[in-house]
């Protein structure tokens, strides 16, 4: 028995040691990576952002708001896009809090929302981007509710359990995230260069779940709570409904009612900017799919936003 236990412990220690080394190297390399979607985390963690105008939201925000246009329109202010592709408000809030741990408070927040902003996030999209930060208080708290393997959240060397692609990419110094496109990233913004894909739109039109706006009550409550927090901190927030193509809106169930309800819900906390009804958004050349603007649409939309903010900025002061 003694020999068995000694051998078992020796092997376990060897295994744990190798796992610890691999985890340490992977963490360091991923945290240092300043490309693709890792870049936003990297810049937020290193306190390099300190934005005056912070754009929050999901993938819609990520591709719809060009910070360079805002920088020009609001001289002296730095805008930064923290749109979180693939994740809803629960994870966006966790990343915002993570950002605030390392950066000063913004002077203005543009909180971009859409029809799926308030559902619960799914733990399956590019999760590698925040695995190095999984033990940050706010990130871990948010991940607990998303069905993340509890071992990963409990034991540091287990955080890359089942993440062979990510670990090998980090160890071999390849692109850190599978499928991450080598696009130019400026102040968090990634311009979408794609054009409208009619085939994909028609295929998606057969999937009713993509056209059924929904919300999780707990996530929505945390959204309202966040608005009240910002008000207490005297950080002005603009809730911005990002444009959707009108063909999408025509198919979406209760789209207009959803926006109206949202406008009423936030009325006490923040101005609501909604340009959804403008005729520009009938034009598919501004979109790459029904719910996301391409770079052409983003420039147009950001210019509209900038015009609104120019006057608003005076009020903020």
């Amino acid at each position: 028995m003694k020999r068995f236990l000694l051998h078992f412990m020796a092997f376990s220690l060897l295994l744990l040691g190798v796992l610890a080394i691999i985890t340490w190297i992977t963490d360091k390399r991923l945290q240092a990576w300043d490309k693709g979607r890792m870049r936003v985390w990297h810049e937020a963690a290193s306190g390099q952002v300190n934005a005056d105008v912070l754009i929050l939201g999901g993938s819609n925000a990520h591709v719809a708001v060009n910070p360079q246009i805002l920088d020009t329109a609001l001289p002296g202010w730095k805008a930064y896009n923290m749109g979180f592709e693939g994740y809803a408000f629960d994870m966006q809030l966790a990343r915002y809090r993570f950002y605030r741990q390392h950066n000063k408070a913004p002077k203005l927040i543009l909180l971009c929302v859409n029809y799926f902003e308030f559902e619960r996030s799914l733990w399956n999209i590019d999760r590698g981007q925040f695995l190095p930060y999984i033990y940050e208080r706010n990130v871990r708290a948010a991940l607990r509710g998303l069905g993340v393997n509890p071992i990963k959240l409990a034991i540091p060397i287990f955080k890359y359990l089942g993440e062979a692609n990510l670990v090998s990419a980090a160890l071999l110094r390849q692109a850190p995230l599978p499928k991450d496109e080598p696009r130019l990233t400026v102040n968090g913004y990634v311009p979408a260069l794609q054009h409208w894909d009619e085939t994909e739109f028609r295929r998606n039109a057969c999937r009713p779940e993509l056209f059924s706006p929904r919300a999780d009550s707990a996530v929505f409550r945390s959204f309202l709570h966040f608005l009240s927090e910002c008000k207490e901190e005297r950080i002005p927030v603009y809730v911005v409904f990002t444009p959707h193509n009108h063909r999408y809106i025509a198919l979406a169930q209760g789209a207009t009612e959803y926006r109206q309800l949202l406008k009423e819900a936030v009325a006490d906390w923040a101005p609501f900017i909604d340009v959804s009804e403008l005729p520009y958004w009938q034009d598919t050349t501004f979109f790459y799919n029904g719910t996301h603007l391409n770079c052409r649409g983003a420039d147009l939309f950001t210019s509209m936003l900038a015009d609104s903010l120019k006057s608003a900025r005076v009020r903020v002061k």
Partner: protein
Amino acid sequence: MLFPSAAFAFFLPIVFALYWLIGGKRVQAQNVMLSLAGLVFYGWWDYRFVALLLATTAFNYYMGLQLGSLPEGRNKKALFIGNVVVNLGALCFFKYFNFFSENFALLIRGIGWRVDAFTLELLLPIGISFYTFHSLSYVIDVYHERTPVCKDASAFFAFISFFPLLVAGPIVRAKTFLPQFEQQRTFRDAEARDGLRQMLWGFFKKMVIADSCAPFVNQFFDHYQTQSTANLVAGAVLFTFQIYGDFSGYSDIAIGTSRLFGFSIPPNFHYPFFSRDIAEYWRRWHISLASWFRDYLFTPLSISFRYWDRWGIALAMLINFLLVGLWHGASWTFVVWGGLHAAYFMPLILLKRNMSNYGVPAEGRWLPSFRQGLSMLVTFALITFALIFFRAPDLHAAIGYVQTLFRGHWGGVDVERRIWLFIAFMLLAEWLQRDKVHPLQLDGISARLMRWSIYLVLALVTFYFGAPPQTFIYFQF
């Protein structure tokens, strides 16, 4: 509690330490410890089922004592039949009630009467088929005096609720396994170390092979209407490896765990993909179930039908496989799966060729002969085809899958390449070690550093390439 889970990673060392701290000489105390561990392990899923497990165990323990005390005669036989009826009745109630009710209503409607099926919202107790068969094996063996009556309640409770085998087998026999609970267990260093190696191989098969195949199999079977032929072929092949990795992986972990506690259990799988015909396949696949049915159903039936010569054996075979299918679940898909295996088996019985392939394939050679290789491929294709029915949610979907398979366009295969690489690695390791109990018995490598490096790499591969743990497929049975 799943084997690849944090809970089990804490549970096993605690039980192991307590078990051996009690000491091999205090057998009854160890048995009580094992019984409690079994109840915790079982109750982890749903504590409500613990009562059923306790009731089944107590009932069979009492019946065993009664059977042992009665002389040969009508009373003993009646008690025995009553016991079998109660055991099978509980199994049928939980597992087959709705199936028979719905099909009975369908039959009645077929003759023009309007009836609605009476169904119950029943939650199937996990592993009920396995522990019912453990109990039945004991009662049958006691009745036929193949095993003595167990008077030690702690041994009997530990036998039924032994946690490594509780929810998905292997189905061990009372005759060989129960006496191990009545004897003093000694810790054998070599056995325990080999048990750990077997567990490691089991985790690799479960987490890297089975759980990686699962998403693709689910996608291809759930949306077979829109898949290319190549994807449907890949789906069927991957499911064959998924269920093998899943169930043989579970069996290896269960057997390896048992060896840590000083118990010896025969293998449940023995490289089934190297079978040269379907008869050999059933000597290598789910051996404990196949031998249970062979001993308690097929052999008695063959004796009953002996006047019909080979046709009698063929009929016994057909009944045997249909019931093996039904044992897996209350669905016609399992019956068809069993029927297909009976159909594959039938020519071998009628031509008296069912014992022609025995022993290690291509023994002493690196590669099989062309004929052997071809036989293995044909056998693999047959079992893969039958497994389409096993996996499909219902008969309609299974037929649809097969029709689309033959009518669709070939197209490309949308499966990650690394899954094929891991399957190839598993097959290669099993082929090279096909004369061993499991492929990690690396006695031929004398350098410890080399052996440990292999274990380490396999553990790291399992750790990083293992997909998120999924419930073992056989838990539902």
